[in-house]
């Protein structure tokens, strides 16, 4: 197990070198392509190797870095859980490293490549450190570094006011979340004997203090992961970063928050309680549903994808909630199933969301448009990007035989085992959350029909969309890697569940012995009688059925297709403006789920007498949660302001009074 840790340390060094090398990239843009990105890619390849090594040979490796406090050096530890997340960072990072040089050419003239490379390198370093950290101090330092590095990436194009505003919101919420996590660690450290994770594990805090620590951690990590109602920063911050950084943020950074949550709740806290699991389950289900509904209302491509991250993090937390409920109720085997389902969805989401953000970046690169209403027909001009994007759309819509389906299937299987529970309320609650998951999946499919149909199909809706060009080879390769991984995880799930199985072995002391009992063809999460899914055979049968249909038709008399005009009812030919728009596509769903949104709709005539339709869909949570909290914070600030008269004597008086009070308290 030491070899993977050495590889991971090597990756840290490579990522840091990449960050340092980037400092000179402003003078020599060549350097970005020739040194910064390859070093970044090397770091990610090392991470992938370290992660796979750690999963294949489960064990625990430790190291201590001579950094940090004099009495508390940074402890690092690589176990199966950390290895899984390292592999995840590695595979998405590798695709990003392939993609970044082509995408960054855009910025060569106008922006600073040094800033981009420096903070991307630091971002990677900090995420790896978070995953490796084995004491609360190192964890929090790495966590804060991650927030700061990503803040600078969000505000990379800071000349736009909206980006600065998004960055500020992001930083504010990241810091509030970090405070909650710090307090959570404080509870564990106070009741244990120190900040090292080993001490916290030994103390195994449970009961009321455990619940307090859980609530703090759920708040803090949930905020970083983008769970509803703490998601407001996510659709603002993710879209405005450069697209490959969006892929890293949505694909990887949210997963680091998931990692933190799993580490905290499954590893450091004491005995699991059912009520925690129920809270996680409900919040996850609500996040999934609201995330996809808000995503449907967007027509900014990257913003839409960011809302889908809220949805998918919700699905991950449904799996985690199931695992926690089952663990609390004393069914470790079912808990292991829930955990594997959650982890499988974690890697899946990293892959397809990374892919979709890279695809959105290619579209942005080719058309300089983010608004889907101005796109259309891009499949003909960007065939490769279109193909890879389609793979991403199918995967995220949870359709067989791609990867998203496998993890949702596993989650459903875990939920269907609810009959084993004693508690009647739990037995009914879990299927209802499964129904919400089903609705989420179906709405996600609707949303991606909209995305793909409006962006890549039909006729171009604007001049930039007509003049789009395919992106460079590196950018296509980055997407291709992720698309291939999506297919691989969809078609050969038994290999990957076998790999993931080491994580519940570490955290719950329980494997899924049955999952691959029928050989590599059959995925049988509970047992062969309960459910089985053979993804390789499904894939083969789908290909066979397609081939048979095509073969039978080829033998028919008429082979050729004739090109003609589309049906126009006998009136004038179709124009691009006659197509369904993204807003129009979502209109029925907007109407059905209307009460969940705050919709502003108006009609007016402009100067030329043309009718203008204006539609804005707002997040209800802004007015229900964020604005009241903001107002309360301002009021509290004003009230505290009364204490500050600006007169030195008053301040001295306060200091004296505080000292006196403290002396009285300790005596």
């Amino acid at each position: 197990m030491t070899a993977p840790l050495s590889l991971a340390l090597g990756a840290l060094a490579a990522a840091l070198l990449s960050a340092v090398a980037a400092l000179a990239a402003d003078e020599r843009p060549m350097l970005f392509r020739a040194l910064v990105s390859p070093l970044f890619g090397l770091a990610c390849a090392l991470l992938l190797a370290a992660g796979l090594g750690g999963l294949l040979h489960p064990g625990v490796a430790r190291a201590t870095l001579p950094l940090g406090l004099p009495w508390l050096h940074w402890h690092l530890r690589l176990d199966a859980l950390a290895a899984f997340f390292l592999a995840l960072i590695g595979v998405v990072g590798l695709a990003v490293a392939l993609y970044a040089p082509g995408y960054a050419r855009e910025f060569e003239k106008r922006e600073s490549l040094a800033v981009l490379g420096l903070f991307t390198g630091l971002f990677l370093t900090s995420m790896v450190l978070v995953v490796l950290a084995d004491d609360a101090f190192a964890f929090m330092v790495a966590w804060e570094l991650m927030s700061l590095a990503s803040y600078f990436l969000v505000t990379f194009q800071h000349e736009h006011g909206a980006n600065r505003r998004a960055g500020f919101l992001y930083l504010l919420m990241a810091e509030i979340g970090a405070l909650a996590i710090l307090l959570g660690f404080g509870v564990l450290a106070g009741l244990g004997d120190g900040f090292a994770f080993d001490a916290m594990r030994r103390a195994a805090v449970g009961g009321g203090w455990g619940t307090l620590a859980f609530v703090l951690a759920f708040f803090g990590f949930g905020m970083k992961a983008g769970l509803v109602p703490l998601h407001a920063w996510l659709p603002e911050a993710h879209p405005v970063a450069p697209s490959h950084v969006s892929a890293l943020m949505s694909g990887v950074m949210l997963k680091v928050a998931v990692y933190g949550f799993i580490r905290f709740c499954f590893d450091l806290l004491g005995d699991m309680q059912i009520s925690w699991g129920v809270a996680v389950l409900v919040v996850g289900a609500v996040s999934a549903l609201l995330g996809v509904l808000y995503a449907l209302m967007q027509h900014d491509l990257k913003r839409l994808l960011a809302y889908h991250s809220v949805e998918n993090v919700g699905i991950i937390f449904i799996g985690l909630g199931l695992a926690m409920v089952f663990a609390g109720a004393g069914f470790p085997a079912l808990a292991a199933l829930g955990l594997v389902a959650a982890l499988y969805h974690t890697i899946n989401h990293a892959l397809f969301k990374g892919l979709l953000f890279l695809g959105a970046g290619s579209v942005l690169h080719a058309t300089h448009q983010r608004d889907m209403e101005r796109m259309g027909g891009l499949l003909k001009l960007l065939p490769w990007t279109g193909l890879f994007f389609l793979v991403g759309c199918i995967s995220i819509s949870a359709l067989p035989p791609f990867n998203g389906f496998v993890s949702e299937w596993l989650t459903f299987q875990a939920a269907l085992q609810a009959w084993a529970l004693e508690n009647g309320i739990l037995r009914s609650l879990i299927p209802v959350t499964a129904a919400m998951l089903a609705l989420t999946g179906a709405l996600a499919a609707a949303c991606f029909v909209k995305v793909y149909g409006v962006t890549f199909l039909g006729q171009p809706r604007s001049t930039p969309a007509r003049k789009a060009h395919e992106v460079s080879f590196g950018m296509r390769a980055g997407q291709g890697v992720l698309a291939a991984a999506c297919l691989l995880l969809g078609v050969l799930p038994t290999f990957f569940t076998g790999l993931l199985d080491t994580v519940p072995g570490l955290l719950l002391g329980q494997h899924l012995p049955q999952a691959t009992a029928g050989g590599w063809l059959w995925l049988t999460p509970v047992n062969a009688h309960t459910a089985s899914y053979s993804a390789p055979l499904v894939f083969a049968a789908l290909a066979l059925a397609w081939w048979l249909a095509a073969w039978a038709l080829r033998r028919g008399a008429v082979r050729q297709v004739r090109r003609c005009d589309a049906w126009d009812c006998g009136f004038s030919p179709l124009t691009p403006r006659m197509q369904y728009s993204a807003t129009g596509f979502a209109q029925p769903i907007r109407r059905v789920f209307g009460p969940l949104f705050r919709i502003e709709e108006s009609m007016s005539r402009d100067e030329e007498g043309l009718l203008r339709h204006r539609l804005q869909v707002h997040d209800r949570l802004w007015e229900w949660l964020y604005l009241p909290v903001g107002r309360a914070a301002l009021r509290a600030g004003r009230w505290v302001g009364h204490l500050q008269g600006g007169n030195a004597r008053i301040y001295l008086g306060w200091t004296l009074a505080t000292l006196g009070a403290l002396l009285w308290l300790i005596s």
Partner: protein
Amino acid sequence: MADLLNPAAWLLVPVQALLFLVGAPLLAGWIRQWKGRLQNRRGPAPWQPLRDLRKLFAKEALVAHSASTVFRAAPYVVFASTLLAVCIVPFISILQPATAIADMIVLVGFLALGRFFLALAGMDVGSSFGGMGSSREMLVSALAEPAMLMAVFTLAMSAHSTNLSTVAEYNLAQGLVLRPSYLFALLGLVLVAVAETGRIPVDNPATHLELTMIHEAMILEYSGRHLALMEWAAQLKLMLYGVLLVNLFFPWGLAQTLSPAALLAGLMAVAAKLAALGMALAVGETVLAKMRLFRVPLFLNLAFLLTLLGLLSHIILEAGA
């Protein structure tokens, strides 16, 4: 569960696929004939859809200038995914080994895959009809899918399995007991089936009136063999839902051995059940009027509530018993 290593049982799978391929147009024709009779017409012969398919396959396929490869690939994807879906239901025998490859949730996934490409194909040409059809289809399916899965969960939680053969076997072994959960699930699934197969009162398969069509709007641009594949897939889907309804809730008659006599009896039984179901559908389509689009969500909410009630009554009344 069927024996996975029995080659005779596996031979049943292609036979079943062929029976479905021939039976689905016949079922559609049967329904059409009965509708005709109920409307005081003579109605076309039941094999008319088969003739139509043959005619379409012999015709040249027209593709719009603005269409991309997705438009040309979609009929094959839709057909292949629907064909796979019909291969994994117990049709004439409960000894159906292909049910182990894909369970009920995968079945829902196959149908969703077909629908995804159908809706994409509707968007591809860039006409308003296609977009309208896709938008409506995705709304209907998004609301129908949770109801469908709730019904599936009720069956799966009763039998402790999502394998379709196991579920049919369990129901067969239980005998005829009136269970509230099954009643609710059946009613809900009937509503879902009506919505998903585009029948009255949700959609009208016979209309080409622009403002009312859903399924027909998506395939408006198709012709020749592409249209034939799309039509065939739709007929397969109709028969699939019929088989699900009759074989999961009324599994009597399903062959329990692989002897020719038992299989023949199973075929007769399922044909009789489907014929009865087809007549019921024809009567329903004659007496009901098509709903406005925005009444469809209410209809599907009803389906969801019914299936949810079914699940809850299973958990409260039946589980643990």
